[in-house]
Structures are given as C-alpha cells and as structure tokens.
C-alpha cells in the first residue's frame, strides 16, 4: 500500500515537472514570436516610408525608367538607417522583372527578413506603374 502511494506521488511529480517545462517553453516561444513580429513590422514600415519619400517627387519612377539601378541603390542606402540590408526587385504592370542587375547592399540570408510590396505610379505622361518588392533585414 505504501509503495503504491509512493508510485502515484512519483507520477504526479513527473507530470508537474512536464507542466512546468512545457509552460515555460510556451511562454518563451510566445515572447520570442511577439518580439520578432514587432521588429519585422517596424522594418517593413521603415522600408515603406523610404519608398514613399522617394516616390513623392517622382524620382523613384525616374530611376526605374532610366534604368539607373546604381543610383536607386545609393539613394536607398542613404534613406534607410545604417545597419539595414536590403534587396529590391522591380516588376512592370505585367509582373515581368525589369531590373537586370541586383539592387542590394548586402546578403539577407539567414536573417530576420521583412518584406514590403509597393506600387509606384509614374508621373510620366504615359501612364505606367511598377510593383516593387523590397526585402529588408537588420545586419547582426
């Protein structure tokens, strides 16, 4: 009888241990996700603002229409905060990629990446629009 009770207590102890371990892991997982989502959202917001600033005077579509990819890369480098890597891809209205060279300032592999999708409407008399995908990551 004594041994039986001792065994039951052991089972309860073991399950308590499982519960503690599981709950601590669950809490840490939720905290990690929340933090990373916020960071990613902030980065996307920064990227969107940079593109909007560049688009406000029509210079974004000018860079695209003249194929001045190095100029676009340098301007984005200036507009984005230091320590942010980016990779930009430009598509026309038919979703055909336009940029024939990489518009990037670093490698985004194995990093937390935020994505921005932006429609750039040209101020050119002939109506055109471009779809821009901007991927951003904080250099660690």
């Amino acid at each position, binding site marked *: 009888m004594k041994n039986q009770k001792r065994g039951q207590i052991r089972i309860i102890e*073991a399950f308590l241990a499982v519960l503690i371990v*599981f709950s601590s892991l669950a809490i840490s*997982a939720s905290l990690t996700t929340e933090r990373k989502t916020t960071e990613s959202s902030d980065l996307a917001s920064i990227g969107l603002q940079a593109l909007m600033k560049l688009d406000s005077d029509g210079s974004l579509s000018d860079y695209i229409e003249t194929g001045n990819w190095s100029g676009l890369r340098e301007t984005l480098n200036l507009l984005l905060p230091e320590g942010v890597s980016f990779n930009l891809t430009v598509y026309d209205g038919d979703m055909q990629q336009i940029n024939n060279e990489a518009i990037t300032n670093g490698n985004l592999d194995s990093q937390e990446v935020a994505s921005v999708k932006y429609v750039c409407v040209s101020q050119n008399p*002939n*109506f055109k629009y471009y779809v821009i995908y901007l991927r951003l990551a904080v250099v660690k």
Partner: protein
Amino acid sequence: MKGLKKLAGAKSSGQLLIVVALAIAILISTTTAYVYEVSREKPSSTQDYPIAELIQAVKQGSRNAVISALANASTGGEKRALALNLDRLVQAYKSLNVYGLYYLSYNVLNDSRYVNGVLLSWEDTDGLGVSSAYANFTLKFSGLTEKTTLSYAINITTTITLEGHCTLNGSEKIVNLTCQVFNEGKTALAKNITVYYEVNGRWVPANSSNNLSITDYGNGIYAISFTISTESDAVQASIHVYDLRGIFVKANVACNQA
C-alpha cells in the same frame, strides 16, 4: 487499471519513471521544434504596417496618376486621360491586392470650369495660366482588425503669373517680363521656359537674335527680357512653361510702354 497499478507497484516504479521521462523528452523535443518553426524567418505581410501608412501609399499612387494625366492632357493628350489613368490605377490595385483588402473608387470633377476633371485655362491675356486636374477618391479598407472608409481629393494645379512692360530703346523695344511658377499654390521651379511675342497675329519665338535673357532666381521667379523691332505701342508676349513634373502651362500678357 490493473496494469497501472502493477506499474505503480514498488518493483515497477522504475519502468514508470522511464515512460514518464520519455514522455517529457518527446514533449520537450516537439515544443523545441515548434519554437524553432515559429521563430524562424517570418516574412511580414504588408498588413503589418499601420493603416495610416497604407492610406498614405494609396494616396501617393493616386496623386502620381493625376499628375501623369495632367502632364498628358496639357501636352495635347485627351482630357479623358484622367479617367483612363484612374481606371487603370484602380484595376492595378485590385488585381495585385497589394495592400490587403480594400476598394478604391473615384470620380473626376465636372463643373463650369473642369471638364472630365481637367482645367486648361491659357488663353486669357491677363497674365494668368492654369493647368489643373481634380478627382475625388473613396478608399474602403477592410483589414483583419479594422475597417476604414476614407474620402480624399487630389488637386494638382500648375499656375503661372506673368507681368510685363516694355521700354523704348532707339528704334527697338525692350520687353521685360516677370514670371512666377506655382505648384498647388506654392512656388515651384520650371523645367523649361519658352518665350513668344506676337507679330501681325502670329506668335514668333524669342531667341538669341532678340537678346533673350532668362534669369532664374531659384524661388519660382523668372525675370525675362528680350528686344524686338515693332511700331505698335503694346507688345503681346506669351510664356510657355513645363514644370518639373512635366505639366505644361502658358500665359499671355500685353506689355505696354512704361
């Protein structure tokens, strides 16, 4: 139950602990795998932006579409360019579903001055020239957490004012003009300025043979002077301007002798 009781017995308690330890190991490993999965690279969707930024982005797109239409209409394109541009813009946003779930609609201004949302007022001789386009938009945005309906108007207007007089210089007349360029009521720069004067009902471009000089003060004010041989008291002058957005506007003025 019998089995459990047996396991819980003193002799089998070690086996039970092994089973429980295995259960713990499985739980920990699956939890770790889950944590790893969710904390891996998470591409943020555009819906992660604040809604105010999405609205700004759509406004920016519609503003550029109106500028494009006015640049087209003012350089000889059809006045329906605005409606055509905005149709294409609405379709583009709809097909790409760029900023989540929303519906953008528009209507162009039609009144005594605007036709199909475009106003080109150039022919007066009071020294005022206006190129303008106006459209109202309604944006209905349905995100996961919030629903927003926003109405806004886009008014793109390039205006020039022209003042002038002429002075007699021997047998010639020196025409002095002051031109000011405005975008949406604020001073703006011109990309290109061409000067004309009227001779026998025909507009003639002023050039270096007329000692044409254009001084750019950098604040939207341009001082222009040229010389012509004419016997008439007043000289009709016309200035054709392209602003930095490619919108064309012209203004005419009668320059009387000072």
